[in-house]
């Protein structure tokens, strides 16, 4: 099965923006609530981490000020690129441009999130309310998609977008936070796990906290935790295979190699500097995967098609890769 290349790319981004919206809701919620019960001197470091995880500039701390509510609403509904509102708008825009691929129920859920989220009503909504709304709506969207969407290519690209975004974010969370996971600072490591919905899973699996590397093990290497990078990579590989990419395809090679590194690696053998290096490698490879995906499914077909029409190579639109 093939589909319109533009739609495939847009649906991949629908998946990414959906995942990003939900994660932003969760991370801001976790940070906001943690600071309600923390000494004031932790506020700056905590928000600094949050901004780094969410992809904001550190200068936001100065422009917005060290106010919990103000920072939260800046991240949620601030003007400009990168806020949760921005992600929701892009999610809805990409969906609207591809409505014919989405089940009507799913489109309505996405549109509903956008309708409820785009008009800020400070009287009834505080940071807590926004985050709850965002997470619940996003979970509704995911559930509706799962229950209504036929599993053809369109679904695959959407799923790939979600898994890819999630793997990138979990890697980012670990990179920003893992040096702070000291045994005697439980509010630090529990914050990280909460940001990835993994606190309960960690308690069940490790029963107590001895070693910061248990967090790396759960969030990077676990095959069972849905937000672990390894989990995402295994499912990415499956989806790519179902789209018809053979073993020689760049997407499969990039993701397969990365998968092997995580599957056969053991964080308990590594020291902190090696974990830092590993996280950088994972992020780099995930970005390469994105580039390979675009070249293989969104761009290259045009180039291949034109070549097969025996145009001179110099004339083809895609002569440069």
């Amino acid at each position, binding site marked *: 099965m*093939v*589909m*319109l*290349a*533009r*739609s*495939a790319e847009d649906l991949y981004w629908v998946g990414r923006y959906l995942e990003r919206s939900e994660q932003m809701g969760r991370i801001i919620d976790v940070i906001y609530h943690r600071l309600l019960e923390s000494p004031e001197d932790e506020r700056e470091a905590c928000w600094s981490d949050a901004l780094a995880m969410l992809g904001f500039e550190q200068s936001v701390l100065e422009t917005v000020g060290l106010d919990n509510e103000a920072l939260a609403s800046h991240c949620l509904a601030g003007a400009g690129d990168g806020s949760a509102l921005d992600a929701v708008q892009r999610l809805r*825009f990409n969906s*609207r*441009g591809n*409505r*014919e691929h989405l089940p*009507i129920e799913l*489109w*309505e859920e996405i*549109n*509903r999130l956008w*309708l409820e989220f785009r008009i800020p009503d400070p009287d009834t909504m505080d940071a807590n309310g926004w985050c709850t709304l965002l997470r619940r709506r996003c979970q509704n969207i995911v559930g509706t998609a799962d229950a209504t969407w036929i599993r053809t*290519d369109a679904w695959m690209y959407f799923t790939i977008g979600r898994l890819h975004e999630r793997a990138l974010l979990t890697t980012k969370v670990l990179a920003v936070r893992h040096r702070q996971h000291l045994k005697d600072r439980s509010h630090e490591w529990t914050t990280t796990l909460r940001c990835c919905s993994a606190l309960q899973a960690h308690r069940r699996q490790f029963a107590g906290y001895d070693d910061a590397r248990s967090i790396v093990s759960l969030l990077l290497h676990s095959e069972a935790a849905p937000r672990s990078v390894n989990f995402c990579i295994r499912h990415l590989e499956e989806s790519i295979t179902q*789209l*018809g990419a053979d073993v020689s395809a760049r997407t499969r090679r990039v993701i397969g190699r990365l998968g092997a590194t995580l599957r056969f690696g053991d964080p308990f053998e590594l020291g902190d500097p090696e974990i830092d290096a590993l996280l950088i490698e994972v992020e780099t490879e995930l970005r390469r995967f994105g580039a390979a995906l675009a070249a293989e*499914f*969104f761009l290259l*077909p*045009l180039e*291949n*098609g*034109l070549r*097969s*029409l025996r*145009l001179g190579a110099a004339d083809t639109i895609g002569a440069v890769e």
Partner: protein
Amino acid sequence: MAELTAGYEHQGFFDEALTADGEVRPHYQQLLARLEDITAPNLVRTGTQIEDQFIRQGITFTVYGDDDGVERTFPMDLIPRVIPASEWEMLERGLIQRTTALNAFLDDIYAGGANIVNDGIIPRRLIVSSEGYRPEAVGIDVPAGGRCVVAGIDLIRDGDGIYRVLEDNLRSPSGVSYVVENRQAMARLLPQLFRDGRVRAVSNYGELLLSSLRAVAPLSAPDTPNVVVLTPGVFNSAYFEHVFLATQMGVDLVEGRDLVVEDHILYVRTTGGLRRVDVVYRRIDDDFIDPVVFRADSTLGVAGLMSAARAGNLTIANAVGNGVADDKAVYAYVPDMVKYYLGEEMIIPNVDTYLLEDHEHRAHVLSRLGELVVKPVAEAGGYGLVIGPTATDQELADLAVKIEADPRNFIAQEVLQLSRHPCLIDQTFQARHIDLRPFVLSGAETKVLPGGLTRVALKKGSLVVNSSQGGGSKDTWIMEDRSPAPPPHGKPVHRESEAI
């Protein structure tokens, strides 16, 4: 719901639901009886629910000239318009007749040697001076002569209740999505109105359209031709309709950037390479469709599209150059076309039209400018229309200058007494002017979707029904031909006991 007749003003217009004596017409009796069982606040609440549903489902059009590209709904009035089977049977025949003649005319002009001109029926000058005439399309064949695969023929009823054709829309007539969505919303929220199931369905439009589009595919196309819908994109006012059409047909909705022409063949870019397209149902104007042939600065179209059509590898629907047949001056010749091509008399008459290029007509019109409606010949959507009785002296003086400068660009008609229909406004029934746009599909055979889009001028006293100018719509019911037993003493036989 309060009695329909209470406070309802007749004002001498033809009313669809009531006779001049204030009696409910037979085909409205059952509907109005059922409406009476619903209290006014409930009806208003249902209206709000429908509005919310349209917003939630994104059934909207975009208003131009607004930075945010605000999406608005097309307001739907809750009181359906009812057309009895016998009336519809006549309309259907008339619409098929007219569309057949218009298709024959276009095929004659572009691919048949323009016999109608050579035989002196229509002046050559009128054709070549039409803005919609595209010499670039001469010689391009369309299989089955299906140049207007989709035609929207605007009908009105005059003061005597006689149906007349107001204008033809043969380029990209829009509005059919509202016909289907209005019906769905009505059936979901006011199911009690439909209880005896005699209203003809409209939900199969997608299948009808797809089979018509496949029927005009090039001869070289495979058995199941690849059809796509071409849209200018998400910022277009009618984008929802484009999505609707692609979804209903189950085909790709593409933009110009998704398409490429090589060796006179049109391809769509897919994740698996280029895939051939046989029929493109385009919702882009001629001017923008192919920068090689028409506007070079257009980024909406596809370079080489016309060459693919000319080579017989692609059908563009509706065909390029159809605007010549919905030119409002050419309109006056449609009765002649019907006679010339079909040897028949018009079933649904035109509105009497003055061609301002004609010296006598022009002198007559200029002397009565304040009493007539003047329209530019190539505009759609009610733009540029001047209604004499409501225009200021300055507007009329300006118009006279414009007419003298370019008489070919205008036509004039008597002010029409558009029929009226009860609408739910401020919790009461009030009469508003309406028209009807049925959709006629041509392909292997010519078919009419039962009903069409009833547009309402929601502003009191207004005659302009266009969505871009404050119009709304109504669900339109064509009744099955199963005559109900006549109710005794003019009262409905059967009544629902409980109100909702």
